[in-house]
């Protein structure tokens, strides 16, 4: 099938439609893995996951295991996490400290800069001269880059520089990284879950303002009950302290920003509220960064750095890494993201808010993931008719930014400024335009 059979993108006609086959076809999935996940920049983790010399963490790019480690000089590097000898996975843990990695299969060893240190019984091995000319070190990723605390890698050499790939979206990463003077960290305790649906449903749902009051009424009712019958046992919620998201709210409530390469933000006005764990820092943050940027840090913000990083700052603060496993199976690795050095009380509040909303064992995320599975079931075998979920905001989307973004100098490609009921869907266009650019060649191959 041609790309236009998958995405019907005709701005002049006011049409943007998506073929459900993009969520079900194995050929599309294979193209995505090659052209998007293994074919360009993807998020690997935070630099604080390997804080000290010889610290490391492991992750995955597409089908490949990846080792990110800090050498003895403190320099970060990223490698394929496989021994060049027989290809066995080398580092076995999610995170650790290892001046030397010894392969558990035949004891080849590597230092934290990825150099081969020893080949067991090398002299007795009767190797040819050709073998000696090979590099026996770990395979470095063709590209590895860092923006602030955020680490990215690419398995493909032919990519733009990281700064160009991230473009203006780096300011949205700044809003996260600047919350703590000492940087950002992951709260100990990683939560992993899977759902039986396509990875792009997670991509979309993070940016989906339209679903909140429909998918999460049970959570909203719990918040209402907590407000009505105060108890010191329950945690305050930032949702209680704002109403931009309510079906009967009026005025400008937020909107969306779309950047090149598929990075998008949707946002809402939360205000500087004591329900936020950042509240204790409201003064110092305004002093350090100005009030406008401080206020943006308090706003509800759901950010996607295409294709696999999402930072959701709404009920609490979550970092997610999306990993597609099959057209109808996705793995989500999730963490509570927090500024280093916040007070014990703020950290506790952040964690409690997080568990209630974001965990797959909490009161909101299950209603999302079950909805993804309902979508996947609804798609059936793929193309039956075009999906109509990409049309809200079509006449509100403008080129460039708006007065809210201007306050912190945001320069998006497109933006929507919305009343609470608009619930823009044009920000998905940015995903699918980037998606189409990336997989076009692979689909034809």
């Amino acid at each position, binding site marked *: 099938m041609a790309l236009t059979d998958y995405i019907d993108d005709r701005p002049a006609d006011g049409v943007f439609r998506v073929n459900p086959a993009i969520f079900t076809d194995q050929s599309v999935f294979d193209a995505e893995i090659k052209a998007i996940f293994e074919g360009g920049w993807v998020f690997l983790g935070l630099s604080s996951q390997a804080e000290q010399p010889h610290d490391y963490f492991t992750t995955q790019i597409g089908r490949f295991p990846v080792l990110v480690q800090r050498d003895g000089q403190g320099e970060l590097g990223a490698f394929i996490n496989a021994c060049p000898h027989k290809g066995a996975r080398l580092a076995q843990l999610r995170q650790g400290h290892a001046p030397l990695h010894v392969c558990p299969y035949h004891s080849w060893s590597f230092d934290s800069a990825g150099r081969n240190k020893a080949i067991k019984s090398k002299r007795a091995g009767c190797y040819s001269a050709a073998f000696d000319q090979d590099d026996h070190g770990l395979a470095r990723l063709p590209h590895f880059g860092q923006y602030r605390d955020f680490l990215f890698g690419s398995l493909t050499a032919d990519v733009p520089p990281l700064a160009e790939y991230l473009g203006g979206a780096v300011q949205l990463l700044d809003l996260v990284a600047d919350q703590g003077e000492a940087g950002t960290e992951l709260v100990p*305790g990683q939560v*992993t879950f899977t759902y039986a649906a396509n990875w792009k449903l997670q991509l979309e749902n993070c940016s989906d303002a339209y679903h909140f009051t429909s998918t999460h009424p049970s959570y909203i*009712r719990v918040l209402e009950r907590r407000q009505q019958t105060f*108890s010191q046992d*329950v945690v305050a919620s930032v949702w209680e302290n704002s109403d931009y998201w309510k079906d009967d709210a009026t005025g400008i409530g937020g909107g969306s920003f779309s950047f090149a390469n598929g990075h998008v933000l949707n946002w809402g006005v939360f205000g500087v509220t004591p329900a936020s764990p950042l509240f204790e820092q409201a003064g110092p943050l305004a002093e350090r960064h100005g009030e406008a940027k401080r206020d943006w840090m308090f706003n509800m913000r759901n950010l996607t750095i295409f294709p696999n990083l999402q930072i959701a700052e709404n009920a609490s603060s979550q970092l997610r890494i999306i990993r597609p496993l099959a057209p109808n199976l996705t793995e989500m690795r999730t963490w509570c993201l927090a500024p280093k050095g916040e007070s*014990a009380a703020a950290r506790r509040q952040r*964690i409690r808010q997080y568990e209630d909303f974001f965990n797959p064992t909490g009161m909101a995320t*299950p209603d999302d*993931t079950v909805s993804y599975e309902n979508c996947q079931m609804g798609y059936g075998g793929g193309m039956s008719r075009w999906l109509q979920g990409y049309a809200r905001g079509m006449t509100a989307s403008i080129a460039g930014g708006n007065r809210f973004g201007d306050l912190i100098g945001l320069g998006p490609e497109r933006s929507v400024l919305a009343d609470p009921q608009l619930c823009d869907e044009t920000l998905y266009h940015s995903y699918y335009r980037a998606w189409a650019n990336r997989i076009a060649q692979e689909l034809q191959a």
Partner: protein
Amino acid sequence: MTTTITLDAAQDLLHREAHLLDTWQFDAWLDLYLPDAEFWMPAWRDEVSTTQDPDRELSLIYYRGRRNLEDRVMRLTSGHSTASWPPARVLHLISNVRIARSEGQIADVCSAFVCHRHDTRMNRTDYVFGRYEHRLSFENGNIRIARKKIILLNDVIATSSDIYSV
């Protein structure tokens, strides 16, 4: 009259709790918990250890106060949660029950569990397993739960999980 919690009594309470969860008798289930009860399912810090301090580390579920469990039950039974209706059919099996510590009217009880789950929506059957650590308290002639810790061993959550399915 003795107030010491016997192994038989502890086992009976654990089996009763399992049955109440299996059969969605949540009001009776809540009655088993003391008002200031702690309900805790830690996350895993790494491959070998769970998180230890719920105020500084993430848990899969952490509540202090039965009030929070009432919120969870309200959501589950509200009819407004697509993940919760239709409910999964679950069956808890509890074994290896022993009293780890007993002092006065308090007993710390360890057990092993498997919770089988059938999701009718997806026609999917799976299971979770792990250990329970209950702190039981003999109060006014009844044994009640002061604390339940769930150490979930297979912690890659298949889509979702809730208080009745672990």
